[in-house]
């Protein structure tokens, strides 16, 4: 009953005209940016973030959340129509979505995506409403050592599943932790690594890091990937709705995908891509249509979309109750909350109930908007994808410049974005993913503070981390993830090498 009453209050918050408007703007802009090939939810949130600094924190959070799940939804459009995923998670949707479009059933694929996203989003919303208060209560008993351990677990969990391998992911997290130390040390007041540049006294702004690593880097990478690629699909509204059998075949995948996605999304550091991939793999085993997966079946589109969207919602659980990002974009949310003067963590539910429950209720409103908006607007997104990318990207770079410049009205921030973007692109070429770096950058100051507190309270005894049951358990989990990730990386490399050698042997004429 408490949950229902709190949810009702949240609904009143989000139904206020201004919050409703920002929810709509967020969902619309998120979908718009997500539809563009190669520009993911990270870049979308980074580009919107400067605008939100002018808003009330609740409105800002509602809008950022709208951008997040709007972009994740929009990413599926270009993956279905062009086989170019708008977001990484949408690459799973493309496996069945693009073959469906090639069969002339793009409308059915997009409609199923919208329905599955809505279903997944609702499952995610229920999970966040039920689980968050209990998790927040548990987290109230956390000491600094436990917090340090939970942050470490989140960072390692996020980096260990990095595409470039666990080692590179962890290295990027550490590089992010180091980047987070630039500026004034809040404990001692000393300046660190500012190189005498006054603009660095307050550290590097999260928008600059996010714009550089995701806006600039993704833009550079997407120019060639998207050149010449434009949608040739047309949508026939007569063949838009799934058949009765297809409707029936959607329910199971949506429920399964939504459940798997909400579980994986709630784990610190994981993301929608993993959720969508696991849900697809499970569905491929249990579905009656499992033999047809990959050839263009409706459940193959529905399951990753439901998982993706439910994981997007439940990623807010660790973010808001523990202060540990549930997914890389959540790192930006934590950074944004801190700029608004709000510390994410177990006290947020007690101190900012309107904000928390307003956000949860906005998932309902936003997902309804997403559904209502996107069924009639599918034609518009299709037309958007017909615009050549050569007209798009110069405009996006101007928007990035405007967003960064408007932070402090200072061109130094643009130079810094340039440097971070260029370095990010070079690192990307060598499979160093930027998302773990951003996580480390956001959580670094928190981690350092908790480490200092722990050492002070334990009188310099590091064994305290192993003596407290919560931190010991979390550290054991962290160690387990590291060992597993390194083993998996090694095994994948060995397998890849074996395949390469076999191919070479077969290719060598006898």
């Amino acid at each position: 009953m408490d949950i229902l009453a709190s949810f009702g209050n949240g609904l009143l918050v989000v139904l206020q005209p201004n919050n409703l408007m920002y929810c709509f703007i967020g969902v619309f802009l998120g979908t718009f940016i997500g539809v563009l090939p190669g520009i993911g939810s990270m870049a979308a949130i980074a580009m919107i973030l400067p605008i939100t600094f002018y808003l009330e924190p609740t409105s800002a959070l509602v809008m950022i959340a709208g951008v997040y799940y709007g972009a994740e939804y929009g990413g599926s459009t270009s993956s279905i129509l062009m086989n170019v995923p708008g977001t990484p998670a949408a690459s799973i949707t493309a496996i069945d979505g693009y073959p469906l479009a090639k069969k002339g059933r793009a409308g059915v694929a997009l409609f199923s995506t919208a329905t599955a996203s809505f279903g997944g989003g609702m499952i995610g919303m229920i999970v966040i409403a039920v689980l968050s208060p209990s998790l927040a209560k548990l987290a109230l008993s956390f000491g600094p050592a436990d917090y340090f351990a939970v942050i470490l677990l989140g960072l390692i969990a996020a980096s260990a599943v990095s595409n470039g391998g666990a080692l590179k992911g962890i290295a990027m997290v550490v590089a992010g932790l180091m980047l987070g130390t630039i500026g004034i040390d809040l404990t001692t007041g000393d300046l660190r690594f500012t190189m005498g540049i006054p603009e660095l006294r307050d550290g590097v702004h999260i928008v600059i890091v996010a714009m550089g690593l995701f806006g600039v880097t993704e833009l550079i990478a997407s120019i060639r990937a998207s050149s010449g690629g434009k949608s040739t699909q047309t949508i026939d509204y007569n063949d838009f709705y799934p058949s009765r059998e297809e409707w029936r075949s959607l329910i199971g995948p949506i429920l399964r995908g939504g459940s798997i996605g909400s579980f994986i999304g709630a784990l610190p550091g994981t993301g929608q891509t993993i959720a969508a991939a696991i849900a697809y793999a499970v569905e491929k085993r249990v579905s009656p249509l499992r033999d047809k997966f990959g050839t263009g079946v409706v459940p193959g589109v529905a399951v990753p979309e439901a998982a993706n969207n439910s994981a997007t919602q439940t990623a807010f659980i660790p973010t808001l109750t523990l202060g540990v990002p549930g997914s890389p974009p959540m790192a930006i949310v934590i950074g944004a909350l801190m700029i608004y003067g709000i510390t994410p963590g177990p006290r947020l539910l007690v101190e900012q109930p309107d904000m928390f429950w307003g956000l949860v209720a906005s998932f309902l409103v936003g997902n309804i908007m997403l559904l209502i908006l996107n069924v009639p607007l599918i034609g518009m997104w299709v037309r958007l994808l017909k615009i050549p990318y050569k007209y798009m990207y110069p405009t996006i770079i101007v928007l990035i410049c405007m967003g960064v410049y408007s932070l402090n009205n200072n061109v130094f921030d643009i130079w810094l974005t340039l440097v971070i973007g260029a370095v990010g692109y070079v690192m990307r070429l060598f499979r160093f993913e930027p998302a773990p770096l951003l996580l480390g950058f956001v959580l670094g100051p928190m981690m350092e503070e908790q480490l200092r507190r722990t050492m002070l309270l334990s009188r310099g005894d590091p064994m305290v981390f192993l003596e407290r049951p919560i931190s010991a358990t979390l550290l054991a989990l962290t160690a387990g993830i590291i060992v597993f990730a390194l083993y998996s990386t090694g095994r994948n490399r060995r397998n890849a090498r074996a395949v390469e050698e076999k191919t070479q042997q077969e290719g060598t004429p006898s």
Partner: protein
Amino acid sequence: MATEDKNPAGPEANEADGHGALGWGGEIGGLILIGLSIIFMIGGWQLGLGIPTRLGTGAFPFMTGAILAVLAVVICVGERRGDGIAERPDWLACGAICAALAVFALSTDRIGLVPGTFLTVIVASLPDKSLSFAGKAILGAAVAVACWGLFIEMLNLPFKPFVGF
């Protein structure tokens, strides 16, 4: 650095899998991290490490620098066995986008938002050969006017449309 042609399938195959496109292997990424870790370790040491009870200003940067140094060395060793680069680099796009950012940074305060945006769009669109210079100029003018209308007239952001004209 691995400059030799590692792939027996030839230089074209190398380019496709990313090894030969640059002429060097992936250890360069590890070397960048080693450089970064050394800077933070030295900086952290100079700032003061403190004592275990009261960690100094430099303790956290020093610790993270040391961890990164170890990881970077392991990465460099691993890369020598040849993971190569993930994708063929697009230096033209990289140069154009970086130059566009630089043009915006150099021009906005000096000549104003409208001409600054116009130049930024032209520089950013340079890698695209399919768009004529006139097309780039029209695109630049359209984006500049749109930015003027949206950011200055509608949102009242403190940009100056023109400076020194």
